[in-house]
């Protein structure tokens, strides 16, 4: 908008543009560039300020937060965190979330690796159909099967069980894991494998000792990319878990918000606790996150 209103005026009084060795830019372009910068840095505030408020308010006292929601922590304290951690059972929730998420990702990767290896590297009878069968799961709205999943786990005596949740989560990740890993296996050169075969290594040895070390980057992508949604999932534990001592973070958070409605600073601390592991993961593995996102485009 600014660019449009300013340009005619600029055109009427031509300003001598100093010669520069870099690419010459017209006044109009410079105004557009300025508008773009304002937009980009402006949106940065929109993206970050809510998160900054969340973190700052978690270090303040509740009376402070309720009277001045936008203030800085004048005497920052960890009281809210120790309250959430010990009195509101966040220690338990974090443990359960870690157990369920890690368990599910390990199981998911553990079964997807051999499957992706066979499907990605070998042509065998039924292989194409199996690949299509796995990949169709990429677009399935899995939650719609919640009632049968509920009764199925009931038959296995796994309602209100973290193991039941692990099985469902691991299964829900298989299409994505097989998709990423198979594509990666397919791209590996066959010479190494042939050399190992000539040396007399069996199929399983080749897979375990020769191929697995080569696909480590793809495994990292899968791990990061499955961890994030599972850590935050609320729908399945809401339906499948019953006992507070087994709650994962999202369900625990709901309980917490119901119980301590007016203790805002503690609520903010609870939100931060649920968020920090993901931010750490993002900082450590942003490369894998971008790789996983863009992998979808080659589908």
């Amino acid at each position, binding site marked *: 908008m600014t660019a449009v209103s300013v340009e005619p005026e600029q055109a009427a009084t031509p300003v001598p543009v100093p010669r520069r060795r870099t690419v010459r830019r017209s006044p109009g372009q410079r105004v557009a560039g300025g508008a773009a910068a304002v937009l980009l840095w402006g949106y940065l505030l929109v993206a*970050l300020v809510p998160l900054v408020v969340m973190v700052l308010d978690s270090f303040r006292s509740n009376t402070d937060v309720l009277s001045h929601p936008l203030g800085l922590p004048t005497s920052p304290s960890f009281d809210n965190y120790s309250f959430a951690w010990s009195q509101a059972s966040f220690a338990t929730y974090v443990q359960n979330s870690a157990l369920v998420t890690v368990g599910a990702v390990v199981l998911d990767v553990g079964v997807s690796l051999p*499957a992706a290896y066979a*499907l990605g590297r070998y042509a065998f009878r039924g292989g194409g159909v199996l690949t299509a069968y796995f990949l169709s799961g990429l*677009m399935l709205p899995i939650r*719609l099967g919640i009632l049968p999943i509920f009764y199925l786990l009931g038959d296995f005596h796994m309602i209100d069980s973290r193991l039941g949740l692990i099985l469902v989560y691991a299964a829900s990740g298989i299409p994505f894991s097989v998709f990423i890993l198979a594509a990666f296996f397919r791209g590996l050169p066959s010479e190494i494998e042939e050399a190992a075969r000539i040396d007399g290594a069996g199929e399983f040895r080749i897979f375990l000792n020769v191929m697995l070390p080569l696909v480590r980057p793809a495994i990292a992508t899968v791990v990061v990319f499955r961890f994030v949604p599972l850590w*935050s999932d609320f729908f399945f534990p809401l339906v499948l878990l019953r006992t507070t001592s087994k709650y994962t973070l999202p369900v625990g958070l709901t309980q917490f918000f119901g119980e301590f409605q007016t203790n805002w600073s503690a*609520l903010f601390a609870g939100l931060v606790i649920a968020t920090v592991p993901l*931010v750490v993961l993002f900082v450590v593995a942003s490369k894998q996150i971008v790789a996983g*996102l863009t992998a979808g485009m080659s589908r």
Partner: protein
Amino acid sequence: MRWRTAIAFVLPALALYSVFIVYPLVSALADSFWTWEGTARTGFAGLDNFRSLFTQFPLNRQLRTAFWHTVIFFVGTMIVQNTFGLLIAVLLSERRFGKRFLQAAYALPYLIGALVVGYLWNLLLSPEFGPVNKAMSDVGLGSLTRAWLGDPSTALPVVILINAWHYIGFPILLFGAALAGLPQEYGDASRVDGANAWQRFRLITLPLLTPAIGLVSILTFISCFNAFELVYALSGTQGNQPTGPGGATDLLGLIFYRVAFQEGGENAIGQSSAIAALMFVLIFGVAVLANRYFRRREALLT
């Protein structure tokens, strides 16, 4: 590799995926054709469960409203999140300074779960103590403050904005990667031909982004029609009542959960399975058709 060895490699994944994902979905489709009393199947219902969704008051009214809310939610998200995300991605792609930092900062909310985002904004937008209303009165906009989530006229638009804030990192990163992968020559050639920035974007960049736009649109569609957590945390649930002020933010994902686990009529399994079947056909069907459409567009280009 021998056939039996290959099958042995595939078997664990095949079993887990079939038992916990495929079987439940197929079984939900099958359940929708039966009448249920509690958990006991009492007789073949044919299409009765489906018919009841459209005739039984108040479920039929609630379903219709929730469907249109979900459509608005999807269209709004496409407009706000994906076009703005594309704009930001294009602007970022022309920058050298601060590009990676900005990209990472925009994507930060994307990592956080929808439930946490919902609770966070629930506090931020709170009518009495919320920082948003506070900040507005501080800068002299006090007359515009309101209970953003409690007012039927603003509740759904606000939910759309929050959803866009949450997920905008996804189109930014994905379009960013797609833009980085575009061949430089087309842009250079058209610049020589005297095309301006808008013409270059409209006639060169946009068509080349078709695969990325297709992917983002399809995934946005799936996530909007599955949405549950965000609204659950923002609007709270009131037993078996439609969600939000006057049911203003009731979406299909919420009504499905309610019929299956809260409303608990005699035939809850039959009816909720029928809803699941319809949603399944809608989500999967549209995703497959859209996928085919974008692929054809892509093929026409090359």
